[in-house]
Structures are given as structure tokens and as C-alpha cells.
């Protein structure tokens, strides 16, 4: 293993995060605060409780999921697309690095960033509502695994994108709707039966449900299916990258 190489990519990527730390953290903090103002105070004063949990507290896990999903994807896709765009990728291709090591460096950095942001949101949320974490290890498990999985997904987007618009299209058209419709801000039990069934087709629902379980021991679906879901998405992303990236597809002429 070329550990120095992996470390180089990792540090290089985190350095970009450090250079823009203010923008990187300000946006999730402001967004979180806005959600609390809008959903927590305005709507929360009418809904008050879901599954016996105060509404403001109830939406915290979903909000974190929303943020780490979008952050992991956008960080990883940008991080890998950018050197392709500037052509500085020549150096990574010429270095004695395996595809696995390159992915590890980029995805590791993007996942780390979104984990940091996830923690910052938990802290921010703590200023607005009471948060309990019943199963901290399970919570960390979901946080880390989701970050890695969606960083891998972002890496794939960064590998395929042909322009900056291409980086945005899947997050906007697919991920954001799935997160919003995946019960970030409500329990699917509140939906009519038909829409409950439709919701069950949404993989993000399982992630949010499992994550929420680690906080409050309430969930829409069983914990087991949640864990299974995250592994299935993780393994799909890994397989996809193994098949395409290892062959240099889209990266080398």
C-alpha cells in the first residue's frame, strides 16, 4: 500500500476544506438554524409530538441525514471532478497509486468532511432543542457508514460528470427529493396508506429511520432493514467503482 500517497490526497483535500472552513461550516449551520425556525417553531407549535417525541427533536436525525448525504456527495464529486477539469489529475495517474488507494484518499477526505459537518449540526441543533442519543455507537455507525457510502456515490458522479452542471444534476433531481420524501421531517405513518407503500421504495427512508432509532428508539421500519439497506448501497457503489474506475473509464484516454 502506498500510505504516503493516500495520506497526501487525504490531506490535500482536507486542506481545501480548511481553507474554506467558514463557507463550509456556515452554510450547514445557517440551514439547520433556518429549519428549526421554520419547522421547529412555526410548524412544531402545531404538530408538537410524533411517536411521543417533541417535533423539534424528532426532525434532528433527518436533518443530519439530509446534510451529510448532500455534503458527502457534493464534496466527493467536486473533489474528483476538479482535478479532471484542471487536468492536474495527470499527476495522480502517473503516481504509483492503485485505483483503490485513489478512491480511499478522495472518499476518505469527503466522508471525513461530512462527518465533521454532521457533528457540527448536532451541536447546533442542541442549541434549539433537547437531543437524546440512546445508542451512541449505533448513531456513529450510521453517521460514518452513510458518509462513506454517499462519498463513494459522489465519487462516481465526479468520475462521470462532463461539466459542473453534471455534478449538480443527480443530487438535485434524485437525492434531495428522496431525502425530503424519506421522512426527514415526518413519520410515514402520518401519510395515507398508498403513499406509505410508495415511501417504502425509497432507500433513504431506511437510512433516516435507522438513524432516528439510534437517537430515540422510534423507527418507521425495522433496524435490521435499515442496516441491510446501507450495506447494499455501500456494496453497490464499491462494485460499480471497481468495475469502471479500475479500467480507467472516463479518466484516461
Amino acid at each position, binding site marked *: 500500500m*502506498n*500510505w*504516503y*500517497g493516500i*495520506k*497526501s*490526497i487525504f*490531506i*490535500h483535500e482536507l*486542506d*481545501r476544506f480548511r*481553507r474554506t472552513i467558514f463557507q463550509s461550516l456556515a452554510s450547514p449551520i445557517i440551514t439547520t438554524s433556518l429549519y428549526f425556525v421554520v419547522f421547529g417553531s412555526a410548524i412544531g407549535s402545531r404538530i408538537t409530538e410524533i411517536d411521543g417525541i417533541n417535533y423539534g427533536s424528532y426532525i434532528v436525525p433527518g436533518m443530519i441525514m439530509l446534510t451529510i448525504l448532500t455534503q458527502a456527495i457534493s464534496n466527493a464529486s467536486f473533489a474528483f471532478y476538479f*482535478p479532471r477539469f*484542471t*487536468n*492536474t489529475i*495527470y*499527476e*495522480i*495517474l*502517473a*503516481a*504509483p*497509486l*492503485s485505483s483503490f488507494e485513489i478512491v480511499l484518499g478522495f472518499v476518505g477526505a469527503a466522508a471525513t468532511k461530512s462527518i465533521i459537518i454532521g457533528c457540527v449540526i448536532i451541536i447546533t441543533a442542541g442549541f434549539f432543542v433537547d437531543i437524546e442519543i440512546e445508542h451512541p455507537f449505533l448513531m456513529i455507525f450510521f453517521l460514518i457508514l452513510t458518509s462513506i457510502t454517499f462519498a463513494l456515490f459522489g465519487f462516481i458522479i465526479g468520475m462521470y460528470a462532463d461539466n459542473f452542471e453534471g455534478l449538480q444534476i443527480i443530487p438535485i433531481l434524485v437525492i434531495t427529493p428522496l431525502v425530503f420524501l424519506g421522512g426527514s421531517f415526518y413519520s410515514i405513518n402520518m401519510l395515507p396508506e398508498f403513499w406509505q407503500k410508495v415511501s417504502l421504495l425509497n432507500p433513504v427512508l431506511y437510512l433516516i429511520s435507522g438513524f432516528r432509532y439510534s437517537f430515540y428508539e422510534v423507527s418507521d421500519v425495522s433496524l435490521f432493514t435499515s442496516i441491510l439497506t446501507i450495506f447494499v448501497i455501500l456494496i453497490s457503489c464499491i462494485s460499480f467503482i471497481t468495475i469502471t474506475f479500475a479500467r*480507467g473509464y472516463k479518466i*484516461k*484516454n
Partner: protein
Amino acid sequence: MSTVLKINNVTKTYNKKLKALDKINLQIKKGEIFALLGPNGAGKSTLINSICGIVNFDSGSIKINDLDIIQNYRETRKVVGIVPQELYLEAFETIWNNVNYSRGLFGKPPNYQYVESVLKELSLWDKKDSKLKELSGGMKRRVLIAKALSHEPKILFLDEPTASVDVELRKDMWNVVKKLNHKGVTIILTTHYIEEAEELSDRVAIINDGKIILVDEKQKLMKKLGQKTIKIELENSIENITTKLSKYKFDIDESKKILTHSFNLSKENTDITEMLNDLKNEGLKLKDINTDQSSLEEIFIKLIKENNNELVRN
């Protein structure tokens, strides 16, 4: 001398139709400076990028120190450094961080002293904390060289190292290249400047249309190809060349006023002062004189013409 790089029948096609490399065979000896010459689009960069793993080639094999560059990429890439033709650099990082980053990519532990010496050698030390986007073109070129040297490569590829570099800096770079070569680094460079190939290289290959049409020692190539001509315009037309002047083998134009003398660059033994004296002694008055040196372009054209004729004959 042992061979460090063996290229065997390498072919590369872009987008399934454009053949950029056509059965290239080439061997590079340890410790030499090798110049790859050829017109735009000949395939020089494609060849270098294939060797360095930046481009996938279709068929054939490339070996560095007898190791296949695909199967043994970890060993082979460690000893190779590449300076790309274009100024591919990030914007917001500092020189210092970026060069150390390059070293890490190649699997080397940090060595700040070494990186410092490289930056000093390339006159970049004062600028080490500058952001890359704040540098001039020539400085960026040197940063790329520093990056390529950061992991102490044994083989260095320089793809047009002195494009967009001023004359003085070009000389400095030549010195850097020579110094590296003295330390035992094998150097492969591409260039459009014949003086550069002349100044630096031990051997030269000419590549055209994806094919290597000639590989030779520089000295021999210069002898074969480099021609210098001196055109002398006379006040009055000359009727016949006297025996004394016949040794210069002048070409005379129709007006009988312009004498042209050609000689090979490699044996610059035509004594121009003597020639001018001889002309004067023959009572000829000079009106104008100018010299012309065959450019790389002309050499290409000549070679490529020969190459094509050969193809027709075979």
C-alpha cells in the same frame, strides 16, 4: 550502457479512429539525454503520456528497468517523473505545499531539506509561500519541474520544458537538465527548438504521424541534416568562378549576382573570413550578405519527404 526503457510495438488510437502512435519501437539508454522531435500532432506527448500511465495504449509493451509498466506499475512509476506540456496546476495552493504533496503521491516520506534544495535549484525558494495562481508562466513551468523532481526520479520526462520560457531562463533550465543528467538521471525531452536538442541531447528520434522515422546520435544527425547557407550578393555580375573560389562550390543564380554557399553545421570548418577575403582578392565587390540555417521545420520536411518516397518505393 544498459537500457532503462524499452518500447515495443506500441500502438495507440484515440476515439477508435485517430491513430496517434503506430507500432513504436524505441530503447532509451541509462544516463542519456534523449530528444524526441516531430511536428505538431506527431504523437510525442501521446508517447510520453503512455509511458507515464496517463494514457492507456492499445497494444504493445513498455518496460522500465525490464519491468512491465502495467503489471509492475508500483515499481516502475516510482522512478519516473513527468513534466507535462501544458501548465496544469491548481490555483490556491502554495508552491511549498503543492511540491510536498507531489512527493507524497509517489510514496516517499517527507523530506523538507530535499524539497528545499529543489526549489532553490529552480530559483523558486523566494516564492515558496506564493499561491500557484500568482505565478508567471515561466515560474509555473518551473513548479511543474519541481513537482516532477520531488520524489527523486531516475527517469525524467520533459514535454516541451522550455515552451513559453524566455531566452535567459531557457539557458538556466538547460543547466538544470545537465546537472540532473550528471547526477545520473536519464532524461527524455520533446522540443521544437533545434538549439535545444543540439545543446542537450545525446541521441535524437524524429517522430511523424505516429511513426518513428529516425533514431540517431545527435552528432550524426546534425551532420546529415543541419545545413547552413550563406548568400552573398555582388555589385556586379560574375562571369566565371576562378579556381581559387571553386572550392566553395558556390551556387550561382541567373543574374549571376548571388552566390550561395552551403555547409554542414556539424563540421563548421568553412572559414567565413577566409572566404570573404578570397572574394575580395578576386576583385569582387560585395553588396549584401546574409546567412540562413536550416530550421527543424525544414529538416522535418526533408525527412518526411524522404520517408514518404521510401514508402512509395517499397
